[in-house]
């Protein structure tokens, strides 16, 4: 593809991998352990598995697949709320595709649809607004989901609904914001991270400055990365170079897309419509202060949580699930007690197994070789924390 193929060049990849291998070996000798780098964004996790990047990297680097898949971090109680709204008479519930299969405590939206709820998959919130315009006698609810990447389009849709005087459209807002989340990960006591691949799509909206505290207060390098395989390799190399030089800065590898200051228009739309929630619960991570957003009071007419009564009950994750530990990189997906046993893509217990951006689903689908290596070592009675680096 024009303008894409150059980011998938295997010859350039080999050159980068050679340099990565040299630096990572040096760092491993210094740290006495592999270098741990977290890709925050689910899109990166998907690309890493899609192109087989994890298998190309030397064992001296370990990628930690972070909490950046909005579908994966959606708590069970919020899915139950979605189902409760969707099952109301006269409601058309609209959602992005991969959110439709996320399990609630009793059922997913897909199951609710099968039982008769009018659940429709859309590609953008504007599609949901069109459905509202075409169905004036129905209440159309859009399941707003995602980080700052998808937040602007939701904000603009609410503003458009207001401008057009649409009164049968509302938003069930589950948008989340990246900075408190990264901070929560960094503050986690069981975490050992050397650097970050910053989320490219989010940064397109918020720019690079918001990550400054990671370098300043936590002394960790962040490289905002694109999603093509060479983007990812180059970003890893940039993180390693900083670590090698003992530096911690915010760098922008994805500068063909990401402006330093972000996207002014998108930020204005977000600021106009949304405000931070005091608390927002994350699947597996618990409540993170000021990590979720809600519609401001002046847009209450478009707020599904105000328009409908929702159960809003906090549902504990299944006890056996270790989504939180996987999200923080404390364990690898295959080390979870239920991975590939009770929890599979066909019968996901945790949301990490649902979306293809979830690290458990990605391992299940793309990562079998590494899993085979781990199981082989387990059979040889090699301790699991050594197997972790297999």
């Amino acid at each position, binding site marked *: *593809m024009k303008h894409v193929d150059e980011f998938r060049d295997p010859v350039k990849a080999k050159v980068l991998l050679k340099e990565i291998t040299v630096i990572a070996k040096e760092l491993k000798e210094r740290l006495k352990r592999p270098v741990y780098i977290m890709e925050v964004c689910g899109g990166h996790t998907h690309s890493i598995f899609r192109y087989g990047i994890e298998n190309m990297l030397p064992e001296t680097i370990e990628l930690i697949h972070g909490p950046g898949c909005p579908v994966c971090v959606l708590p069970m109680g919020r899915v139950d709320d979605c189902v409760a709204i969707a099952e109301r008479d006269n409601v058309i519930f609209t959602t992005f595709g991969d959110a439709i299969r996320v399990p609630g405590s009793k059922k997913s939206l897909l199951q609710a649809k099968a039982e008769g709820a009018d659940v429709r998959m859309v590609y953008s919130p504007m599609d949901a607004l069109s459905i509202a315009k075409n169905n004036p006698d129905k209440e159309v609810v859009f399941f707003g989901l995602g980080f700052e990447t998808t937040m602007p389009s939701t904000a603009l849709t609410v503003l458009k609904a207001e401008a057009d005087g649409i009164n049968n459209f509302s938003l069930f807002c589950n948008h989340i914001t990246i900075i408190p989340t990264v901070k929560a990960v960094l503050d986690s006591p069981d975490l050992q991270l050397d650097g970050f691949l910053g989320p490219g799509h989010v940064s397109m909206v918020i720019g690079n400055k918001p990550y400054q505290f990671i370098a300043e207060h936590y002394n960790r390098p962040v490289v905002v990365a694109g999603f093509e*395989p060479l983007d990812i390799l180059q970003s890893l190399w940039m993180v390693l170079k900083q670590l090698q030089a003992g530096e911690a800065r915010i760098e922008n590898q994805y500068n063909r897309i990401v402006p330093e200051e972000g996207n002014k228009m998108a930020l204005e739309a977000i600021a106009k419509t949304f405000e931070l929630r005091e608390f927002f619960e994350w699947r597996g991570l618990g409540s993170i202060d000021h990590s979720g957003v809600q519609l401001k009071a002046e847009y209450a007419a478009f707020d599904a949580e105000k328009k409908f009564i929702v159960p809003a009950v906090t549902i504990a994750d299944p006890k056996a699930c270790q989504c939180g530990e996987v999200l923080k990189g404390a364990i690898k997906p295959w080390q979870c007690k239920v991975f590939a046993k009770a929890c599979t893509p066909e019968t996901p217990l945790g949301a990490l197994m649902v979306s293809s951006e979830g690290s458990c689903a990605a391992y299940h689908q793309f990562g*079998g070789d590494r899993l085979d290596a781990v199981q082989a070592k387990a059979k040889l009675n090699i301790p699991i924390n050594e197997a972790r680096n297999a």
Partner: protein
Amino acid sequence: MNIAQETEQEVDSRKRKGKLVSKVITLAHGGGGKAMRDLIDDVFVQAFSNPVLNTLEDQARFHLSDLATEGDRLAMTTDSYVIDPIFFPGGDIGKIAICGTVNDLAVGGAKPLYLTCGMIIEEGMEVNTLRAIVKSMADTAREAGVQIVTGDTKVVEKGSCDKVFINTAGIGVIDKDYHLGADKAQAGDHILVNGYLGDHGAAIMDSRGGMNLSTNIQSDCAPLQGLIQTLLNAAPNTRFIRDATRGGIASVLNEIAEASSCAIQISEQQTPIRQEVIGFCEILGLDPLYLANEGKLVAVVPENEVEAALEAMRGHAFGKDSADIGTILPGGTAGRVHMQTSFGGKRIVDMLIGEQLPRIC
């Protein structure tokens, strides 16, 4: 008097006069009376006309001796076709209903001969729409060299089905020399495909999604019996053929790996996928290996026949972009399919779980 002469006579004596006057299908057209008779005469018999069908008996009758000249085993299959939208770039539900069943017979090495046609029509469908679908079925059947010899029509209340559902069953005869099976694949065999993958799935999603992506992707919907015959003539020791419909090529490869207890490795670089389809999948976060095809097959061919097979396939209209995409490995994890990515990595190609869903971002 042979069976054809016999049935021609019966048709003449029947003096069909049925003419459909209504512009839309009503419940009366499924009621068993004159309206239904007119629908069958004017729409179905008119389009599908052949000696076996024209008798309008409750069953189609064939001489066993005629069938026996074609081979030593019968092959039988059935499939139901439910698709939204019913007309799409490159085809329609009628064309698919013929191609799908013809291909299901042909991939087993059978020569497809006779098809049935069961139609469930939603009340309110325009007769002209139905005529267009039936004409497409007749044209495709002619192209595939098969006859539609018996059928059934039901009309259901509005809302009870989505416009029209079609079931076709088919009978074919297998030549005594062909013994294809997924379990016959063995180390060293090559995996061939007959062209660009994922076109049908992308065309349907694009025409369904209303995303205004303005792609020119056309469904690959085609009857493959001719291509398969060409392939089998050139590579008589072909182990297995399967059409890669729902679940895409990834599902077929996994079936082969599982049935033969072998590992398969394919090359991303050698796997033909159109740039438009790759781009479409990138936007929606889909994987083209799992997209449906309606005119693509996967063949497992022994190494010494690969060259001949490819040359023959490329000489056929439905195989000009045929490619050798990978091999059955002598070692590796049994039952597993790998892809060497063009970027230099390696990934697993697993079975699809449920339906592919577009990602959030």
